[in-house]
């Protein structure tokens, strides 16, 4: 990846993190942990990979994204805002009465959201349906779906995995945000989904592993996934829950808790300092 582009993406991801903190702070609730662990990925997808038209969010030929782990809506909204689907200022209305930014994504309310999600395990099925529809129409559309590593405990994920492979949906790319934590603790201790690549491989998927916080690694992973024919691909990305806000990192407690005023200020200062360093 071009050094200048890498730098731009890092800046954008930091601004996305600020949007996440801004949103959950003003909402006094929401899910910062997983939003922060997937912030780099969402930035990379929306600014590098996806063919979209922010002026025509319903353009039929666009690539699709399904946030199967719908609770990281703050992360998705922050990136959609930065990309230009709606003003960044709107992030402060997250979860407020009357806001178009619901606690979990609604395709009816939010520009740029391709599928309503929130109940875990369901988004990946919808993504498979979208990929099937695109394939039937002969459209060169890529469908992306982001899953949590806790989410793959849902049986429906594996129904969808079996279906997508059986129907040869090679324009479907799933990403597992493997931050290793869910609400009740470490995924391995709650109900281990490991080994994740082997499970998807056994279901007939092309599997790729990547570092969730390295844009070059993400680029290599998506390049490989898009070039692969005949099977759906899954990118299992190792991530750090709460990434980029030091006191939230690798803490299950920050799965679904909003920062108080003091924590908000500390988080924003930390991110702003990094952003300032990147500007030099």
């Amino acid at each position: 990846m071009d050094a200048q582009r890498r730098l731009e993406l890092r800046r954008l991801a930091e601004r996305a993190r600020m949007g996440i903190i801004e949103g959950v702070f003003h909402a006094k609730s929401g899910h910062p942990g997983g939003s922060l662990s997937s912030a780099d990925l969402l930035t990379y997808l929306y600014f590098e990979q996806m063919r979209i038209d922010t002026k025509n969010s319903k353009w039929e030929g666009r690539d699709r994204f399904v946030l199967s782990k719908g609770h990281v809506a703050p992360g998705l909204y922050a990136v959609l805002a930065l990309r230009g689907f709606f003003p960044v200022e709107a992030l402060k209305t997250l979860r407020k009465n009357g806001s178009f930014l619901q606690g979990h994504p609604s395709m009816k309310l939010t520009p740029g959201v391709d599928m309503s999600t929130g109940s875990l395990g369901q988004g990946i099925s919808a993504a498979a349906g979208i990929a099937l529809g695109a394939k039937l129409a002969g459209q060169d559309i890529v469908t992306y779906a982001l899953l949590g590593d806790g989410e793959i405990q849902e049986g429906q994920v594996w129904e969808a995995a079996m279906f997508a492979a059986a129907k040869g949906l090679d324009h479907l790319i799933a990403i597992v945000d493997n931050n290793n934590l869910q609400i009740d603790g470490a995924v391995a201790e709650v109900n281990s989904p490991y080994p994740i690549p082997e499970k998807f491989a056994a279901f007939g998927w092309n599997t790729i592993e990547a570092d969730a916080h390295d844009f070059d690694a993400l680029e290599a992973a998506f390049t490989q996934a898009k070039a692969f024919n005949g099977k759906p691909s899954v990118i299992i990305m190792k991530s750090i829950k709460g990434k980029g806000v030091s006191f939230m990192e690798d803490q299950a407690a920050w799965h679904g808790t909003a920062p108080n005023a003091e924590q908000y200020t500390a988080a924003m200062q930390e991110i702003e300092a990094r952003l300032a360093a990147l500007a030099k």
Partner: protein
Amino acid sequence: MAEIKKTATRDSYGRALVDLGAQNEKLIVLDADLAAATKTGMFKKAYPDRFFDCGIAECNLMGVAAGLSTMGYTVFASSFAMFAAGRAFEQVRNTIGYPHLNVNIGATHAGISVGEDGASHQCCEDIALMRTIPGMTVINPADDREAYTAVLAAAKLQGPVYLRFGRLAVPHLFGDDYAIEIGKGVQLRGGKDVTIAATGLMVGEAIAAAEALAAEGIDARLLNIHTIKPLDLDILTEAARETGAIVTAEEHSVIGGLGGAVAEGLAGVCPVPVLRVGVEDTFGASGPALEMLRVYGLEAEHIAAKAKRAIAMKQ
């Protein structure tokens, strides 16, 4: 006497899908390993490229249907009522209902008349489940013609539709000139003493009940309420006002189905006695369909008896 023609509404469903497939290239049919039983197999044979078997995975089936619909397809997703409305309830609610997607759920083998398969497959809760979902249209056709035209109407309607079909062959009630109008009840017989509001295969029983009552000098009005949601409260309110008592009849639990919907609706506008004929709060059992209908109190005589009780309650 000429033999009365009978058809299972699941057959009407399959036939309608084939006819729709010829008209609409964007029509896709999904099933969950029950294509032979739900009759989507007829569509599969005619249009194999637009039929997808999801295997025994109803939750994924509903999600795939939702995704396809966002790509501009008209989708019919099929399984037995027990699994379409029961197992996949939350998928239907969250991934189809909440975004109000254009998915039609063709649910067959509803009710006690599944027969020999017994309680695990006799779904008498599906109307109750589906009608609690905001924006969901719920249709329970009475015969072949009504079922056939219901499928055509559902395909044209934007938004999710739950279509309830049966396994048992039921008598033809309506001619080729009849076509369902979603949300509009149909008065099949005028009357002033009591109103019987029936749905699905109980419409045939209700016709027999009204005739039996007439022979005893009781003038029963008869309504076919094929659409349970949106409910035609106008025709029901008029019936309540003019006849003073209502009996509902459905092959479904007395909790939450047509009877529940009618009672809830009338309570606020024209409260009159509402007695319900349906499966009492119990599970079904194995046995031939017609015998099961008798065992569970779903015959004309049960409707007639409740009609008399309802009339008595008017005083």
